[in-house]
């Protein structure tokens, strides 16, 4: 047979291997080949058009309807607008009316949709029977719940317990009514990050354990003792905006920010100066500042007894001693004191979100006292706008709850949207308690997380985007929540479940919506249904009822005694030993871990490390070399409670003995994206709490740090830590800004002039091709590096808007990431701890290198200057990606999957790219198109600022601007008339349409 003579030669791993193909193999290959050819050529178009049964009034097929609601991904409670297309929510954007976030959202807010449409979301109640889950119906689950509650209530008071996440007043009142009806006091609000130390200090100094807002925008100098207010601290979107209003060059304020902490977090990386102090010694540093400021006569208006006792106490401390303890130089302290004395409106911020325990109270107390000394009226504290998270109970309260449960004092435990088994160090004990036979535990949740897995009944409830509710983001602000998506499962709202549990005659409302409407309309004196509609249309009630009085200061001898106790003259042995300290930080992407099952958040790399999906331990260079480790080497971190092993990554922004790892990963359950991904460092933290404030310890002393001998390939998206002198992300000292900069004229890296992607940027001596003839618009983006905080909100928004595939950890390790916009970070070669962030997306060059090499003309220069990728032409040679100097083109190595119902989120205006084609940023062409159509319908030109791409829309720091370069009056055109404007690698004569403004370097 002739097949037998066929010899196929394959080249496998560089060597030739001969395979004789037999008839059978030939037939197999031929069969599979032709079948897949036939199947692959079939485009499966939709065969049916389904008509609605009844048309909703506010829906027009093919257009987006916006619904205002509130984001509940963290207790900050930003206002959102949800874009509803044919019943599906395709995008979340900030509500511009909402005073907290003013139209902006963070990455977690953008990814809330992946919680709603998560493929691992539970849709049926699950009952545990003999360690197996049995799906039951909602009525059956409810009956079970009702019977257990009744049975428990008959046994006596306080037998029912509940932990809930931070909820709005109306729901909390309902929970409270429920608990008083069933005679129990065990209702606790559980949050992993409660700012106990700050509340404790405020209770002592301001007579109220509150969490006031801060007017960062009015400050001219901010000193932060680790407060990560650009990431997770209290209200990150709000504070990012306010910080940039105070700090950025173009706002005219030009304030400065000094970060004093052992770890230079993302917030610290945005500071003008980072003072690396020894772990747990921030308090000493703050006390040294108090000392110096007090000596220089601040705090005169305070009461005499307090001043006398402070004076007595400070005699025992001096700056030199503090400098030694903190491991900083004395001039750094003096320099900062000088700045503080000079500043008109200085503001001192306290310790980070994840409390370090006892040392955090010292820091917070010293920071608050420093604020009081600098201005006793505390003008930068906003007592009208107290953060909602202050209602949450301290960790000591939660521990008491579990102690009671452990002693068998409770028979029914209800857990509403909390995951203590994951986020508390005593998670194993909690799992054991929940698993007890005599205890009936119910988890009201969306996902099978570590806590739900230990419960007896898992009761799925509606997602916040499907619910009627209200939330008080700040005191005096009531924001409303309304269902923004079509119903796609039968889960009830948690409020309705609790209302049904009341006896029929004692029900506070017919259903939760009616109860909510009654409460809110009464509270805000709304008497018409139109008033109610207006309330939910605008997303809430934003005017504070009446201004709160500034609380009286309660300073005295007890304050100084406390200060002396918290910051003893002789630091503890642990501080002095200089042993490695493990800090676990709240995560910009996952918060406390609740974001870990949103694939976008996993896929977006952590800005500081550029590592996606994985947990890493950030280790300082000295500690790395002492252990003979390099990046990616797995290290074992041992504390008194146990050991974790995770890859190490060198991070220069650390005090020598500090080791940092982020919380949020390492789930044992929580769905396909989170399960067994990364490491949960909570397991090695101390189970105890601080005896004064009740704060948990998110830092722990390390007994040992050892290289395990293994190496883990890192899902690292950055090619290099430094710019290798390529002039990518540039900065400029503030003193150079006033001067007239010599404009370049030559052809070298340093002398190449800025060449706009317009006909005026063409020079026959430099260019082969003539200028493009653009039609009315030449789209362009301006990126202000002085404003970019590196928060990655733009990246998440881009994933949501443009249907970008999630490739997973392995593909990223292979270098096949898909993001259209990324935040690059570069270390300053002279000071590696100082970082610069650069959002990088397609530069839409006028002289695009990608276009020249495509054999099929797939990259196409549009009439409005866009570099359009035409997917149908693309044959996947990848020459363009190779030739692009900005490395922004992404190749689809596979057809990426959106497992049901994640595909419901896909934007119907954007093609889902298939395997084998190249894709990249389109400047949100669908939005340009929409603006174009609207303008044409209204017979006018497109207005400046009418086109807002998704990244620009969401940027909390307003670092991105978009507009038309051909319009001489446009914002972008005005913005680039500055010495700060430059083009990334413009010397290649690519004529990019993305123009960057240099970061301003301020010296303190």
């Amino acid at each position: 047979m002739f097949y037998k003579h066929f010899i196929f030669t394959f080249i496998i791993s560089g060597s030739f291997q001969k395979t004789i193909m037999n008839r059978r193999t030939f037939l197999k290959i031929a069969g599979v080949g032709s079948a897949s050819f036939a199947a692959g050529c079939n485009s499966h178009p939709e065969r049916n058009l389904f008509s609605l049964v009844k048309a909703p009034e506010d829906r027009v097929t093919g257009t987006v309807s916006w619904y205002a609601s509130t984001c509940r991904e963290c207790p900050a409670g930003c206002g959102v607008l949800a874009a509803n297309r044919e019943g599906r929510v395709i995008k979340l954007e900030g509500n511009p009316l909402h005073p907290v976030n003013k139209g902006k959202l963070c990455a977690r807010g953008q990814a809330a949709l992946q919680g709603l449409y998560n493929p691992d979301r539970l849709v049926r109640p699950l009952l545990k029977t003999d360690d197996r889950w049995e799906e039951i119906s909602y009525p059956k689950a409810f009956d079970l719940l009702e019977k257990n509650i009744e049975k428990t209530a008959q046994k006596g008071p306080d037998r029912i317990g509940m932990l809930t996440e931070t909820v709005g007043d109306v729901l909390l009142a309902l929970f409270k009514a429920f608990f008083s009806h069933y005679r129990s006091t065990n209702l606790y609000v559980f949050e992993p990050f409660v700012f106990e130390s700050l509340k404790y200090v405020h209770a002592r100094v301001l007579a109220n354990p509150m969490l006031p807002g801060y007017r960062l925008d009015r400050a001219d100098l901010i000193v932060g003792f680790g407060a990560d207010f650009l990431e997770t601290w209290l209200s990150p979107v709000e504070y990012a905006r306010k910080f940039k209003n105070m700090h950025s060059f173009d706002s005219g304020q030009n304030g400065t920010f000094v970060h004093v902490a052992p770890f230079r977090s993302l917030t610290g990386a945005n500071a003008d100066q980072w003072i690396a102090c020894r772990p747990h010694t921030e308090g000493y540093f703050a006390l040294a500042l108090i000392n110096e400021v007090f000596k220089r006569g601040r705090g005169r208006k305070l009461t005499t007894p307090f001043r006398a006792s402070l004076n007595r106490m400070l005699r025992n401390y001096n700056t030199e001693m503090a400098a030694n303890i903190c491991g900083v130089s004395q001039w750094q302290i003096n320099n900062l004191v000088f700045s503080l004395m000079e500043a008109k409106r200085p503001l001192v911020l306290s310790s980070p979100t994840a409390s370090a325990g006892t040392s955090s109270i010292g820091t917070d107390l010293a920071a608050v006292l420093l604020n009081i000394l600098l201005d006793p009226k505390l003008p930068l504290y906003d007592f009208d706008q107290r953060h909602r998270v202050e209602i949450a109970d301290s960790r000591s309260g939660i521990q008491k709850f579990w102690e009671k449960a452990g002693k068998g004092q409770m028979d029914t435990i209800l857990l509403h949207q909390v995951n203590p088994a994951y986020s508390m160090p005593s998670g194993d004990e909690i799992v054991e308690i929940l698993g007890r036979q005599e205890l009936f535990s119910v988890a009201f949740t969306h996902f099978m997380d570590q806590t739900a897995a230990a419960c007896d009944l898992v009761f799925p409830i509606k997602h916040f985007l499907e619910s009627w509710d209200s939330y008080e983001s700040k005191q005096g602000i009531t924001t409303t929540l309304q269902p923004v998506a079509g119903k796609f499962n039968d889960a009830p709202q948690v409020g309705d479940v609790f209302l049904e549990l009341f006896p029929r005659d004692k029900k506070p409302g017919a259903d939760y919506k009616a109860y909510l409407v009654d409460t809110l309309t009464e509270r805000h004196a709304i008497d018409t249904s139109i008033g109610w509609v207006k309330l939910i249309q605008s997303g809430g009630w934003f005017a504070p009822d009446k201004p709160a009085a500034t609380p009286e200061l309660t300073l005295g001898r007890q304050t100084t005694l406390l200060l002396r106790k918290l910051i003893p003259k002789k630091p503890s042995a642990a501080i002095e030993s200089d042993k490695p300290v493990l800090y676990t930080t709240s995560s910009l992407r996952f918060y406390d871990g609740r974001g870990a099952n949103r694939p976008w958040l996993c896929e977006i790399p952590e800005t500081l490390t550029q590592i996606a999906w994985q947990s890493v331990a950030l280790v300082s260079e000295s500690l790395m070399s002492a252990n003979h480790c390099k990046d990616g080497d797995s290290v074992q971190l041992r504390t008194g409670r146990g050991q974790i092993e995770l890859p190490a990554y060198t991070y220069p922004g650390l005090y020598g003995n500090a080791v940092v790892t982020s919380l949020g990963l390492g789930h044992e359950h929580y769905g396909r994206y989170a399960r067994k991904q990364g490491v949960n460092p909570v397991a090695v933290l101390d189970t105890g709490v601080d005896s004064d404030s009740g704060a948990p310890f998110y830092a722990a002393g390390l007994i040992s740090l050892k290289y395990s001998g293994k190496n883990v390939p890192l899902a690292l998206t950055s090619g290099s830590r430094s710019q290798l002198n390529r002039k990518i992300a540039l900065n400029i000292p503030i003193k150079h800004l006033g001067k007239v900069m010599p404009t370049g004229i030559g052809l070298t890296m340093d002398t190449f002039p800025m060449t706009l992607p317009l006909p005026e940027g063409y020079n026959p001596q430099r260019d082969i091709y003539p200028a493009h003839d653009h039609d009315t618009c030449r789209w362009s983006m301006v990126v202000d590096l002085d404003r970019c905080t590196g928060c990655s909100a733009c990246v998440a928004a881009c994933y949501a808007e443009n249907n970008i595939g999630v490739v997973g950890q392995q593909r990223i390790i292979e270098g096949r990431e898909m993001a259209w916009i990324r935040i690059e970070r570069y270390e300053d070669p002279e000071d590696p701890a100082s970082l610069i962030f650069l959002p990088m997306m397609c530069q839409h060059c006028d002289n695009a290198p990608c276009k020249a090499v495509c054999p099929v003309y797939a990259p196409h220069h549009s009439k409005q200057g866009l570099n359009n990728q035409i997917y149908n032409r693309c044959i996947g040679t990848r020459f363009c990606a190779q030739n692009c100097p900005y490395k922004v083109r992404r190749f689809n190595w596979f057809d990426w999957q959106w497992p049901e119902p994640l595909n419901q989120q896909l934007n119907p205006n954007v093609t889902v790219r298939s395997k084998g084609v190249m894709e990249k940023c389109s400047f949100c062409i669908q939005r340009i198109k929409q603006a174009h159509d609207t303008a044409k319908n209204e017979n006018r030109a497109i207005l400046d600022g009418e086109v807002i791409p998704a990244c620009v829309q969401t940027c909390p720091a307003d670092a991105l601007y978009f507009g038309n370069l051909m319009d001489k009056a446009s914002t972008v055109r005005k913005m680039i008339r500055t010495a700060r404007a430059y083009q990334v690698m413009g010397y290649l004569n690519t004529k990019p349409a993305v123009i960057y403004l240099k970061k301003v370097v301020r010296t303190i």
Partner: protein
Amino acid sequence: MIEVLILSFSLTGLVIGVILVAARGKAMLFFTDFGETMKSLWSNRQPLGWIFCCVLLTAGFLFFFYLWPNIGIGAAQPIAFSHRLHAGHKAIACDYCHPYAGRSIHPGMPPVEKCLHCHNYIIANHPEIRKEHDYFNSQTPTPWVKVYYMAEHVVFNHQRHIKKEIACETCHGQVKQMDRLKGQRFKMGFCVQCHRQNEANADCWLACHS
């Protein structure tokens, strides 16, 4: 035109076959030459038989594909709705049932309740209208069969075309004369031709693609 060609082609084949079989290849008296031809054909009857079968099969296939009754009148719909009757004879405006055409990229399909606005009163007990009632009562969306296809990566904006006063018939054909819609798979050439004639936007992404 193609129908006539196919029909004549298959009929000719059929006649030749019948003559061959009837004469068994014997020379015919009145046309000697023809008789000789027939004879040689008869001696090659086996391969010719195969060829004939193939031709017959092809012709049959083409017949069923193109000429079978009702083939040209479009896909059967779950409810026998006639555009000729509603849009043509009763002269109901297109945008009564497809109200979003002037407001959105998508013209919109009439919800089931809209049909019943009239058909609660007009021939309410007609068997086809009963089906409509069943859809309404059981809250089931009607699975209309799609007849006009556009490639997935094209977003056709109805609003812009309506604003430019392009008649629905320009693309959708003589809907008013069709009971069932024949439909069409639109190809790029169809769009580009018109865009060029009217000097409309011809930018790839700004105009159609996304």
